[in-house]
């Protein structure tokens, strides 16, 4: 029994579309290969970008003030030695009660003038726990001379090789550390060089002086702090799971934040790094768009050619009773299948490429020539491993799929506009 209107089951439509895309096997394979290659390149580029950015961020967080920082309100806008957390002991108890999944490091940051008999330079004095702080793992291996600090050492300092060079200091040298006080006076402490490090990051090597908390707290005492209350500049909180930052920030904020104390995350603490990552990412996406344009034109060419070659066949189908809409859907399904194949093959190629570089990495230090991977006050790991989050996977798949599918719209519309009588004359 016949229906009253043209009826094309989806299974038949798909079958026709599938067979049509394999009519010219070589052309289809070339198109799919070019898409897969473009996609693999995009995956590598994005993966490498994310890998290098995440490496910089991880190192910046480790070298810097953690995922979450608790510090005096107004300190970030205008750092000053007299701005400190006077009741570090109380805040520590509150932090301990939260059971943060990670560690909270006590730190003191001061602006000082470091002087030897030979020279004086402005420096940043960082007081911390030299046994347990996150920085230990990063900087202790960078020692090139001398020893690391010990807990409770109220005189010892470790300086960068750039600073040592400026001060003409060596192991055992005396260094006078002088700081201004809020009232206008100044105060000074005598320190002795225990070790010299070379981190390959100029901002650290030329500027940073490391000491135990004990030495740094003397300066806070000079600002009127009560040492029994464990005065600090900040708590630097390092999370075991960086993805839990929003959760823990909210927890710490509700427990500790008041009109004297502010809780910030690393993005708020290091906006320049955030901006650098954003701009670099944008550059990668511009490159991705260029690749996509080539991919889209590749598919458009293939599908359009196949439509133009089949004008007479479309005329025949229309004469037999296929509607314009059904013809449009047929050609669109061909693009759909081509897109699905392209994404699948693209992910096999791209996924394989990503797996290789995620496992073996790329030696960035060698590529950057001087062996240094420092930038923006932080550094990348010497060997970068590509990283792809699930969000990126969805994003890249969506972009390629939509681009390839979109390139099939014009050929589908063109096919649907075929008039039988003109087409059959060709």
């Amino acid at each position: 029994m016949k229906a009253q209107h043209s009826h094309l089951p989806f299974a038949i439509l798909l079958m026709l579309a599938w067979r049509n895309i394999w009519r010219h096997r070589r052309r289809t394979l070339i198109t799919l290969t070019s898409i897969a290659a473009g996609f693999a390149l995009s995956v590598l580029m994005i993966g490498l970008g994310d890998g290098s950015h995440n490496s910089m961020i991880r190192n910046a967080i480790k070298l810097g003030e953690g995922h979450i920082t608790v510090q005096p309100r107004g300190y970030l806008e205008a750092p000053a030695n007299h701005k400190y957390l006077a009741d570090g002991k109380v805040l520590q108890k509150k932090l301990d009660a939260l059971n943060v999944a990670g560690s909270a490091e006590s730190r003191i940051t001061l602006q000082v003038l470091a002087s030897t008999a030979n020279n004086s330079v402005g420096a940043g004095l960082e007081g911390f726990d030299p046994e347990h702080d996150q920085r230990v793992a990063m900087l202790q291996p960078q020692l090139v001379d001398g020893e690391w600090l010990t807990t409770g050492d109220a005189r010892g300092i470790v300086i960068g090789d750039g600073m040592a060079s400026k001060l003409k200091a060596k192991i055992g040298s005396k260094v006078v550390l002088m700081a201004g006080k809020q009232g206008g006076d100044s105060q000074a402490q005598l320190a002795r060089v225990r070790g010299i490090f070379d981190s390959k990051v100029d901002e650290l090597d030329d500027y940073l002086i490391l000491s135990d908390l004990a030495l740094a707290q003397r300066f806070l005492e000079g600002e009127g702090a009560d040492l029994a209350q464990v005065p600090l500049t900040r708590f630097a909180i390092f999370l075991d799971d960086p993805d839990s930052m929003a959760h823990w920030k909210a927890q710490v904020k509700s427990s500790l934040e008041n009109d004297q104390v502010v809780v910030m995350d690393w993005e708020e603490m290091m906006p320049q790094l955030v901006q650098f990552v954003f701009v670099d990412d944008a550059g990668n996406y511009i490159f991705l768009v260029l690749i996509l344009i080539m991919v889209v034109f590749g598919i458009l060419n293939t599908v359009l050619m196949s439509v133009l070659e089949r004008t007479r066949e479309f005329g025949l189908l229309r004469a037999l009773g296929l509607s314009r809409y059904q013809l449009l859907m047929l050609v669109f399904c061909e693009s759909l299948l081509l897109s699905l194949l392209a994404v699948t093959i693209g992910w096999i190629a791209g996924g394989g490429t990503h797996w290789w570089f995620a496992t073996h990495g790329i030696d960035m230090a060698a590529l950057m020539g001087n062996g240094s991977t420092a930038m923006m006050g932080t550094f990348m790991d010497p060997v970068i491993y590509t990283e792809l989050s699930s969000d990126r996977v969805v994003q890249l798949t969506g972009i390629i799929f939509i681009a390839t599918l979109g390139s099939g719209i014009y050929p589908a519309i063109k096919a649907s506009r075929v008039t039988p009588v003109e087409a059959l004359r060709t």
Partner: protein
Amino acid sequence: MALLTLKGIDKVYRQGELEVHALQSIDLTVEEGEFAALVGPSGSGKTTLLNIIGGLDSPSHGSIQLNSTEITTLKESQLSDFRLLELGFVFQAYNLVPVLSALENVELVMVLQGRHVGERRERAVHYLKLVGLEKVMHRRPSALSGGQQQRVAVARALAAEPRLVLADEPTANLDSENATALLDIMHKLSHEEKTTFIFSTHDVRVMERAERIITLRDGAIVSDENVERHQREHAV
């Protein structure tokens, strides 16, 4: 009763300021079951008339009724459905969808008609047997000869149960043997299935088998002969 009635059919093509009258005041009635040929020199309007009857083109003036449906008033989507349900087509060449087998090509129109898979398979196999192609039904057109492809087209046209089959120069690309074989099949099926056939042709072999010959010249019908009546009247 007349299956097809054409009244006052004109077709004018405009090429810039020039008007070309492809058809002029065509009046024609075709009865059910007729096996009729449109003949005439190139440019006489045979294909144009066939396209208009088939709803592939529209007349400038006039009326066409097929089985009491006025074709000229149908919208494009209605024409598409009309062709699907009422008409069968056999073209000079490129009749078949290259990616479908002979069997699938015959089934195609029945798929569009929404017939059940069992019914359409049965009918497709039946008509392929009738045209002598049951052994090659799973081959694609590229693996069939020209004559075989035309026979598949005939099977497809008839399997869909049309009221009228329109064939535009179906034997033009065939050698004598294949042309004769194809015409014999079509003539035989026309009688068995009681399906009306209208051909456009230059081919004398087609004319010899036609029961009615409608001659066109310069877009007008110049003669319309019922061949059997003519032969009886002129028999010695």
